């Protein structure tokens, strides 16, 4: 089964959240965990990007592509880019993969390629 990253929809007012919040930013009325999880779309357009050269110690790569993507439902997320020459506004598609490795843990996140 394909891995997903989830947004959180308030059960009272339908406001979508990513990242997760304890209290809904729309109605501020929800009780504990009154959210439904909704998978984030994996297609979108590139809003902005960078290529980083001085990485935190855990990364054993020379450079890392990062970008903010406007997803097709209007929400945004940050992800790693595997795109040689990114451009603002280009169509991208994402898949969930390992984005950070530490001694005993792998962290999964969205990795975008050109659509």
């Amino acid at each position, binding site marked *: 089964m394909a891995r997903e990253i989830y947004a959180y929809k308030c059960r009272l007012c339908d406001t979508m959240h990513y*990242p997760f919040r304890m209290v809904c930013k729309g109605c501020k009325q929800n009780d504990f965990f009154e959210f439904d999880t909704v998978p984030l779309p994996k297609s979108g357009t590139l809003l902005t990007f960078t*290529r*980083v050269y001085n990485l935190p110690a855990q990364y054993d790569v020379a450079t890392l592509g990062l970008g903010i993507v406007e997803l097709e439902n209007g929400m945004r997320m940050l992800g790693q880019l595997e795109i040689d020459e990114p451009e603002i506004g280009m169509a991208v598609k994402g898949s969930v993969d390992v984005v950070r490795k530490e001694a005993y843990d792998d962290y999964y*996140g969205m990795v975008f390629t050109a659509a």
Partner: protein
Amino acid sequence: MRDVYVAGIGITTFTRLEYPLSEIAAYASMMALKDAGVTEVDQLYVANMGAPRVNHQTALASAVADTLSLLPAGAAAIENGPASGAAAIKAGFQAVASGLDDVVLVAGVERMREVNNLEATDFIATLTHPLTEYIYGVTLPAHAAMFTRLYMEKYGVTERHLAMVGVKNQNAALNNEWAHLQQEISMEGILDSPEAMTNNPYVAEPLRFFDACPVSDGGAAIILVSKEKAEELGRPLIRLSGIGQATDTHAVFEREEPTDLLAVRKAAEDAFAMAGLTPEDVDVAELHDAFTILEIVESEEVGFFPKGEGHLALEKGETALGGKIPINVGGGLKGRGHPVGATGVAQAWEIVTQLRGDGGKRQVEGARIGLTLNFGGFGNNVVCLTFVRED
């Protein structure tokens, strides 16, 4: 609410310092205590971000209180990311304004060079959103770079504008003996010559090495007192007249308009409202130029220039010494250095120096009203302060 005055200031050289963290804070504090002419305080606040993680030390304020023989004064450390310094000043203001305390020492300190650059970068990156930013390898230069690209696209800011901020501030630091960077740079050296790409490589495209502040150790301190105490001490009467603080979304991508820094705007509006001032009244400003783009954007968001025109004012020299609103005449974070917990206090130190007329070669003539902007996170926790010379 009582009025609150700055009676003393102190600072250490910003550089790599081979002293224990608490002694760096204590050194700056001693200078401030001597400057004010006091040997006892009711309370001290110590601003710091990294002691537990970088220096393996907790409960820093207790250590500083004892080192300075200030016992049994109250003491507490304040951790608020890169805006720890101004947040501690706000706490000191509240203590004096409320009538709870008459004399408060506020010290800011950081010793980041105890670890290597990779660890220092990771330490700062821990302020990003853990699950939606940090795990991807986002660093503060990466945030600033993505923001810069949007600003370039929307408002026509270029790498040349960024380099102009870097040259202005790093060369201004030559007039500040406490500043970290004491090396003159030129547009030719960092942008226009064939060697520029080697001298000034990318850190996070489109940001280059000289667009970022250095990693520094250092401390700064100020003494806040009531009006009666200020008059008794007889130092120049400089009132902390306005305070604004605002927060914004933790995850930067979630902001509705990604080129706005709403917490900067709100913090400045609140500080001006409290002080009864407008941006036009300000004679000298310290903005948080951890990255060159930030000086341009903050100069707009605090209200010195219309949105999207900060880089045009920079081109005309309006933000340089002698310009309409001189910004970061002591080097800013870019030239003075950025020991994160110390920065907000160091900004106040510079403004008080200016309002006392003690700026030497970097003095803004006749400065009576000053502003500091301390930018935490990537704009998710911002404190703006205004200072007024009253005598």
